[in-house]
């Protein structure tokens, strides 16, 4: 087995002032060519984890510990120029909201060319390269698109442009932060199809962030489930969906109505609301909502144990079926 492309270990993220933990000691690896999904609800720390890899954490939020080793370089310690060189070329990112992630006052062509400009020299072929990239993601009338502004495009088209931008320099790792959440289902499906097709073609690694289990079910190889700033469960898609170990994962899966289920039986719900990561402390963050909770759960935090195929952070896992 080859070395992991990205290896995150013990990553902690917190606010700078009155430090509040937002992500607590997260560790995972992505192998070359592998697609990993991160699933979690809002506030679970999934987006921050993704942003921290590229050093794009918002103001007032910073990495509090741990390391992010990409291709042998620790990104948490890299100098700004190294990071800049990495961004957009080796690692690129697609964002949640295609409405706001593109500069509204810059022509799309210009925004794509900027990627090349930042890493290579612009030359006569650059425009053609950009046009080819746009064509590849299914943008019609590429010449016109180059001269258009983001607002002249629909959400789906914008997200295609974002993907073209991200793929322009053939990155080794594509990070996608809920790129289809803002889109309609039919468009979402188009985008998912596009991304998985491109990934296969380029043998690219991918980190896909989402709150929608349905989206990643057929897209990624392995899945990480986050809750309240911690990874509660990780493993292959097959394992997690068919045999969830963590009560949270389990509850989540059974709370979703399925299209194959014809009984319309009452949905199982998880009582309560998601915990704030900084209130978790040294406990299991899911304990207040867990039906299997014991004193142990609030006395210390469970560690994530298991293999790459399947690991869980729980004192009372669901057990195999």
């Amino acid at each position, binding site marked *: 087995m080859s070395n992991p492309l990205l290896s995150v270990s013990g990553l902690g993220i917190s606010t700078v002032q009155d430090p509040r933990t937002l992500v607590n000691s997260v560790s995972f690896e992505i192998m070359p060519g592998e697609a990993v999904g991160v699933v979690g609800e*809002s506030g679970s720390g999934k987006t921050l984890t993704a942003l921290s890899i590229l050093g794009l954490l918002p103001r007032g939020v910073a990495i509090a510990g741990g390391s992010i080793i990409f291709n042998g370089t620790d990104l948490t310690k890299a100098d700004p120029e190294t990071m800049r060189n990495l961004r957009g070329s080796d690692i690129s990112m697609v964002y949640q909201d295609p409405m706001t992630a593109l500069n509204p006052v810059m022509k799309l062509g210009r925004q794509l060319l900027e990627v090349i400009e930042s890493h290579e020299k612009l030359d006569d072929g650059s425009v053609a390269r950009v046009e080819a990239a746009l064509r590849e993601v299914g943008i019609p009338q590429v010449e016109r698109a180059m001269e258009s502004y983001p607002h002249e495009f629909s959400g789906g088209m914008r997200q295609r442009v974002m993907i073209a931008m991200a793929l322009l320099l053939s990155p080794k790792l594509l990070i996608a932060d809920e790129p289809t959440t803002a889109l309609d289902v039919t468009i979402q*499906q188009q985008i998912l199809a596009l991304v998985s097709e491109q990934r296969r073609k380029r043998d690219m690694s991918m980190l896909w962030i989402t*709150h929608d289990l349905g989206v990643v079910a057929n897209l990624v190889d392995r899945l990480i489930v986050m809750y309240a700033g911690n990874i509660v469960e990780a493993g292959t898609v097959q394992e997690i*969906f068919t045999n969830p170990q963590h009560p949270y994962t389990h509850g989540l899966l059974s709370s979703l109505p399925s*299209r194959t*289920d*014809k009984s*319309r039986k009452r949905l199982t*719900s998880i009582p309560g*609301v998601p915990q704030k990561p900084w209130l978790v402390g040294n406990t299991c963050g899911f304990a207040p909502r867990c039906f299997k909770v014991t004193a142990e759960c609030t006395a210390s935090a469970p560690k994530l144990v298991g293999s790459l195929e399947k690991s869980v952070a729980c004192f009372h896992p669901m057990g195999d079926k």
Partner: protein
Amino acid sequence: MSLNIVNVEKRYLNRASGTTINALNGVSIKVEVGQTLGIVGESGCGKSTLARAVVGLEVPSAGSITWDGKVIDNKAKDRLKSHHSQVQLVFQDPYSSLNPRQQIENSIAEAIEVHGLVAKDKITDRVTELLVMVGLDPDLRNRYPHQLSGGQRQRVCIARALSAEPKLLVLDEPVSALDVSVRAEVMNLLIDLRKNLGLTYIFISHDLAMIRYISDVIAVMYLGKIVEFGTWEEIIENPVHPYTKALIAAMPDHSIIGDPTMLARTLEGEVPDPVNLPSGCSFHSRCALAVPSCSIIAPTLREISNGHLVACSEV
């Protein structure tokens, strides 16, 4: 008692560009008391406009909407203690649908107070009753919206709608904005309320799974028109319209794993601009079944089996 939507059209004039947006293009549907109508469609299909028209927030450009035989319009003076309070709406975003400067208790009590629905000294009791009914701790009554979670807020919104003692509740994407783990609770609550209070629902969503879960009958909308209508089983199990089929195929489903066909493209292109509606069948530009006549003749809803209507000439 029933809600009768007859040939409703709604157009907006965009002054800046001098263009007309065709939001609803002739929608007819009837909702019987006690029934839950699910409306599904993608953004821009007119489902929210229809919801607002049903509660009187929008006046149709043509056609009529009647509840219990009486026309619903936006004249506020008629709404006071009138049949209109029998139709209430729950919005998608529980963050923007509560007045941030009003305590929960006041939000719920206001309609009761204004319309004198219960005696003054009974209002507190009634609010408690409503809070309990939607599964909230009555101790939350003095909180402000920003102190509640999304799920709690949506429950408050439901309680507020119920305070007007409605018969018909229009639910416009009521769980879309909620965290995944709390959606089920709210869905369950809605189902319980329907049973306990004998409510009629119009449940609007882009999420077929939710629609499927709660609806008795489902209407599929595309570009301001109903393209297919039928019982939930018929629509989900036996979709006929190519758009409905595509919608169902595109629905992400966690119960199917590692199936690469789930990532196949089922529908090309995007929804056309409602300013320039395609001629004929508005779906023809994206339809695999389209024949030349589809771009000329606009199909009307026709019954293909008992209670299953579809607007397509090729099925």
